[in-house]
């Protein structure tokens, strides 16, 4: 609350920060076994930072969980492990590969094969196995129109499903945290943050990010107007999709098989923020192949139990 505390009117980042901390504390107080979903992406980095603040000087009183598709950017995994060690939280890794090996899901085939959708089963199995009753997610309402209708504390039935037409009303700062055994909630402390709020906050708090958020040279190939990674080998590149080197950065961090890079020379946080402030395309539209399947792609995945 540094800047404007004297005028009794906090800035927008202070208000968002206070709201998120309130949500995180409320869930820690009312649930038995919360978990924070941590991918190493910018939103979950901000969320973990807020969780640290919420309980300071005590440690974060719940573990973090990474749903690992196995199709990772090595820079992000390196970052994840370092951040987790620094924070002193316990890391649970839920592996999509393990779900495939156990026959819980079947690997997609073909050029557009991705493990994105398979994550849902892995996530729900892990929630059940560890008996988590609340899972913090870094999703924001400005990301996507189905997300715009989601509650902060969002109920999931015993199958992990979201019923968008039958959600609990959410009034004032009062959150209904009642569930039965086997049910759980997803909690979205960043609901009211926009993409640029996240970036402004990262700058204000001087948070470190995985290096792929900044411009670097990468071997890529083009598909549907998006630049997909050719370096990790996780995206199935066709012979008619030539690979080339380009200066790129990632605007979102997800599965390496379906997350697009953007052409950029922005190497510093200020330069990245300047580019994002001037962009004319949404982050999911620009960088997520998984959302392009249909108008309701996100809604359908969310109903099944996706993040």
């Amino acid at each position, binding site marked *: *609350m540094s800047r404007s505390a004297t005028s009794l009117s*906090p800035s927008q980042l202070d208000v968002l920060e206070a709201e998120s901390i309130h949500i995180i504390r409320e869930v820690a107080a009312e649930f038995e076994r919360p978990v924070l979903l941590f991918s190493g992406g910018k939103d979950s980095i901000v969320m973990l930072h807020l969780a640290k603040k919420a309980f300071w*000087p005590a440690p974060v009183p719940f573990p973090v969980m990474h749903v690992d598709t196995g199709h990772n950017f090595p820079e992000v995994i390196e970052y994840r492990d370092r951040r987790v060690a620094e924070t002193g939280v316990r890391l649970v890794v839920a592996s999509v590969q393990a779900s495939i090996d156990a026959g819980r899901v079947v690997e997609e085939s073909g050029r557009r094969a991705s493990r994105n959708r398979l994550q849902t089963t892995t996530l729900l199995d892990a929630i059940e196995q560890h008996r988590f009753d609340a899972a913090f997610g870094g999703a924001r309402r*400005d990301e996507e129109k189905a997300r715009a209708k989601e509650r902060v504390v969002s109920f999931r039935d015993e199958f992990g499903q979201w019923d968008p037409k039958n959600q609990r*009303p959410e009034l*004032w700062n*009062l959150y209904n945290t009642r569930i039965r055994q086997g049910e759980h909630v997803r909690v979205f402390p960043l609901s009211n943050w*926009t993409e*640029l709020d996240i970036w402004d906050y990262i700058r204000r708090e001087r948070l470190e990010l995985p290096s792929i958020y900044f411009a670097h040279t990468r071997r890529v190939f083009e598909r549907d107007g998006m630049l997909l990674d050719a370096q990790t080998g996780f995206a199935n590149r066709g012979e008619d999709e030539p690979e080339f080197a380009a200066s790129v950065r990632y605007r979102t961090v997800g599965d390496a098989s379906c997350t697009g890079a953007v052409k950029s020379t922005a190497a510093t946080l200020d330069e990245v923020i300047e580019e994002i402030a001037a962009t004319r395309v949404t982050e999911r539209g620009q960088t997520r192949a998984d959302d392009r399947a249909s*108008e309701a792609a996100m809604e359908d995945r969310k109903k099944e139990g996706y993040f």
Partner: protein
Amino acid sequence: MASTTPGITGTGKSMDILRFATAGSVDDGKSTLIGRLLFDSKSIFEDQLESVERTSADRGEEYTNLALLTDGLRAEREQGITIDVAYRYFATPRRKFIIADTPGHIQYTRNMVTGASTADLAIILVDARKGILEQSRRHAFLTTLLKVPHLVVAVNKMDLVDYDQQVYERIVDEFATFAARLHARDLTFIPLSALHGDNVVERSGNMPWYEGSSLLHHLEHVHIASDRNLIDVRFPVQYVIRPHKSTDPELHDYRGYAGQVAGGVLKPGDEVVHLPSGLTTTITHIDGPNGPVQEAYAPMSVTLRLADDIDISRGDMIARPGNRPEVAQDLEAMVCWMTPDRQLSPRMKLLVKHTTRTARAMVKDLHYRLDVNTLHRDESATGLGLNEIGRISLRVTQPLFVDDYGRNRLTGGFILIDEATHNTVAAGMITGAR
């Protein structure tokens, strides 16, 4: 005026947040208005616009249907309706805006109540051709029931009445008369055309007789800082922070009471009272998210450290010795019933969640059901169904620390939860306590 970048400024400059709710139906042009605000403030991205243009063209619509920007769920797009509260975001260099977009038909009263509960301002849309309808009165009533501090009546579709000043004036007169009965606090009228953009972002040349601001200008400048209660210190204890396992001896004795300030200004050195014990002590430190702070006020989330060792737990309240909330187990309240599952009726047992305290409660009496269109009180009512509003007496199993809702929305509001289904079944606004 809006920035040239979508969504945000990216300047890192300090700005505040205005939360507003919009009430109206698709017929009033509500979604079109929101689409217009987003579009003209350049908060719409190209891929979003292209998708809407494509859908509009597929449907053979004459104009790009900006309503498609806000209807997010499949059923909404298919049926051309808004089902739920949707939250939208845009910013200008002056302010960040959070829109709670709520449907206006009577069967969605609960959604409007939800959206209004956190709003600084509400926009009520009126179709200039139709004038004040039953639903306009309902929207005005709900806005004042939820104590939304600022109300804007947007008289829309002025293009369809030839931008006629007299049409507008008639609507203003009629609405103002009605609103006076509701004790609406800050009422502003703006004639506009959401479809064509008149008076939405820029003042319109089509209505030279109108001397007020454009809607966006009003939203950017309306003064909201003094809407918060900065007088009555109210700090509901949310979480007790005790890092006792720490090897750091200084932290070993750390005991902090975390929560979000609901009213007043707290400072180190202030004498405070703990409720329910009634014991007084002094604030020694206030820890904010970025270290120690010299004062805390709503809506800051902070941690208080106190001079004396008092047994304090979640659900307790910290206030000032000379300015305390009511400590009450019997509440009088207006409630909006929000579930189709069952009716509210006397003797019904429910959970009440108020600030950070949850307790069991029983409906002792239903005094009347209010007709939200005519404000008629039906004292013969024996129950409240979905979307109905009434006045009740509630007996709570343990004391709550409450204020009148009109004095403080955070310590005066509560929700009721059905113990069987775990659904949130009502929103309550406290009008009296003992």
